[in-house]
């Protein structure tokens, strides 16, 4: 047993990488649910983003194009969800599950010729002397850009929901779509925009796995991250900063338990393996003791005639 061999700086730097896909997908889903839509298709949109981003990055040689394509791919798949739930008025839960199954199959089909291909490497932020600073250099100033994008998105979503009129309207639609409709807000249009944003975020999260974290394409490589992101939104009681906390906690303990194993710490592996789930749930449940409720119209179908 030798805990001293775990370098906390490297640990924090790699937990930020491990947490980013969950964070991106969860912050997108938070906006969707705040608008009163329950999209269970996060996993499907993530894997579609993963292959769309991978394919675009390989074909063009540019990771940036890859991430743009990933966001577009995730959003395009979420359009299907829009058609089903906002126009055909289908059940949100069933449509979301279908979206996940469809996304997994579609990505496997597109990805057939991309097995064993290497994506172009993504550059890390290099701030010269800042990146060379001890301790905070590797943590704060030498990650790749997507890690910062994730944090920036959380801040932006928080500010939008808390301080802006647009955020107020979005929340109104999520709390009572009938009242929002009576006030003259375009419920369907606002929800479509929220769903597309959620799809784009999930796509980015997926591409982060296929372009940065693993760098390769394999069928089903998101392996359930989308479901964890979905659960995280609920446990974070629909609050952006708690989503960030939850994602880092989950990513952090996942990485920490692997490091503890590698360092040979004498805690049974079974406890280590379950620890990310348990600790994340316990912390977020304690935090959400202040009776934060789900958006009142979450998952309900809206039609202007009713």
């Amino acid at each position, binding site marked *: 047993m030798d805990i001293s061999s775990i370098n906390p700086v490297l640990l924090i730097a790699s937990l930020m990488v491990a947490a980013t896909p969950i964070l991106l997908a969860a912050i997108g889903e938070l906006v969707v649910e705040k608008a009163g839509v329950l999209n269970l298709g996060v996993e499907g949109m993530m894997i579609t983003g993963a292959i769309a981003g991978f394919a675009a990055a390989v074909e063009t040689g540019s990771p940036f194009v890859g991430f743009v394509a990933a966001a577009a791919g995730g959003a395009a798949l979420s359009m299907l969800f829009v058609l089903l739930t906002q126009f055909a008025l289908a059940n949100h839960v069933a449509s979301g599950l279908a979206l996940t199954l469809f996304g997994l199959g579609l990505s496997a089909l597109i990805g057939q010729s991309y*097995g064993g291909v290497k994506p172009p490497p993504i550059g890390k932020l290099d701030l010269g002397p800042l990146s060379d600073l001890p301790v905070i250099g590797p943590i704060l100033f030498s990650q790749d850009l997507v890690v910062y994008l994730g944090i920036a998105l959380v801040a932006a979503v928080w500010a939008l929901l808390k301080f802006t009129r647009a955020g107020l309207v979005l929340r109104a639609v999520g709390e009572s779509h009938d009242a929002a409709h009576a006030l003259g807000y375009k419920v369907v249009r606002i929800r479509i925009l929220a769903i597309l944003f959620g799809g784009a975020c999930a796509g980015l999260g997926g591409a982060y796995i296929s372009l940065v974290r693993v760098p390769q394409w394999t069928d089903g490589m998101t392996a359930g991250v989308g479901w964890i992101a979905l659960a995280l939104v609920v446990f974070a009681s629909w609050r952006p900063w708690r989503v960030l906390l939850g994602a880092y906690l989950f990513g952090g303990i996942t990485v920490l338990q692997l490091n503890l194993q590698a360092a040979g710490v004498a805690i049974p592996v079974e406890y280590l393996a379950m620890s990310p789930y348990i600790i994340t749930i316990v912390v977020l449940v304690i935090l959400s003791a202040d009776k934060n409720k789900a958006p009142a119209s979450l998952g309900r179908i809206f039609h202007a005639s009713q």
Partner: protein
Amino acid sequence: MKLTKLLAGVAIGLGLATAGMAQDKPKIGFIYVGPVNDGGWSQHHHEAAMAMKEHFGDAVEVVERENVPEGADAERAITDMALKGADLIFTTSFGFMDPTINVAKKFPKVKFEHATGYKTADNVGVYSARFYEGRAVTGFLAGKMTKTNKIGYIGSFPIPEVIRGINSTFIHAKKANPDVELSVVWVNTWFDPAKEADATQALIDQGVDVVLAHTDSTAPLAVLEKSGGYGFGQAADMAEFGPKPRLSSIIDEWAPYYIARTQAVIDGTWASDNTWDGIAAGMVGIGEISSEVPAEIKAEAEALKASIESGEYHPFTGPLNKQDGSTWLAEGEVADDGTLAGMNFYVEGVKGDIPQ
């Protein structure tokens, strides 16, 4: 009326005829735990199945099912395949063992072959490869090539096959380099690229510079390529990662076995068996050793391989102690297959406990 009766008669006749034809042509089923393009374990079984199909041409029909989870759901998938008329079903992951035995009881006429397990029945045979022979060679290379004297092993599940791999790796790494230390990380999955990548990164962060994976995807090699360090191809050659980080590989050669067993079904001579072959029989192959490895080390590794192949050397030859220091094998004594098949202990020098 007459016309409809006639048509119905023709339809039934045709149905019987096609059913009869279907029975003439053996239907061979394969169940995989991962996707057939995982780049490793499942893909290699799939390619062997395709090689078998090519060998027989139109004489057999091959049906496959990928991404089948281990556990109760596997039973449903195997039952489904048996119901659809498969004559011989290969279940290609350790966790399919009990489901295979359960389904086999219900379908006494269907024949089953389970990979890497140990439970047999009249209509269930088992087959596996002596991967530990390959692990001896890769472990030796790992011991020679590490600069930090720390090597890492990514374990999937604590089953005898993986324990044998860890022990064989450690014994031969230690022979190559007495100062070597082995860190084992369990990921509790055969296939989860992101988790395999995280585990590899965790090992690298701890100063490990050679990682041996016992999982199915190529993610560990992808991370090693990015972060520096060496690794090995597992189940498939994974030559696309050479010459660095991939130093060599353990390749599973299932195709000859699949061809032989399918032939046995066609001939009606199939009987339950327990096949466990290694380098000598060609079931375990060692991939080309990379140009990163200095010539004299490469020669030593090849000599080790040759001595295992000729039967002159067994990777588990005494003196060997168990982890607690008690004697396992005396000087010159060779492990018997029974102990190896159920191996549930580490050899002396491996750190940590085996999860129960």
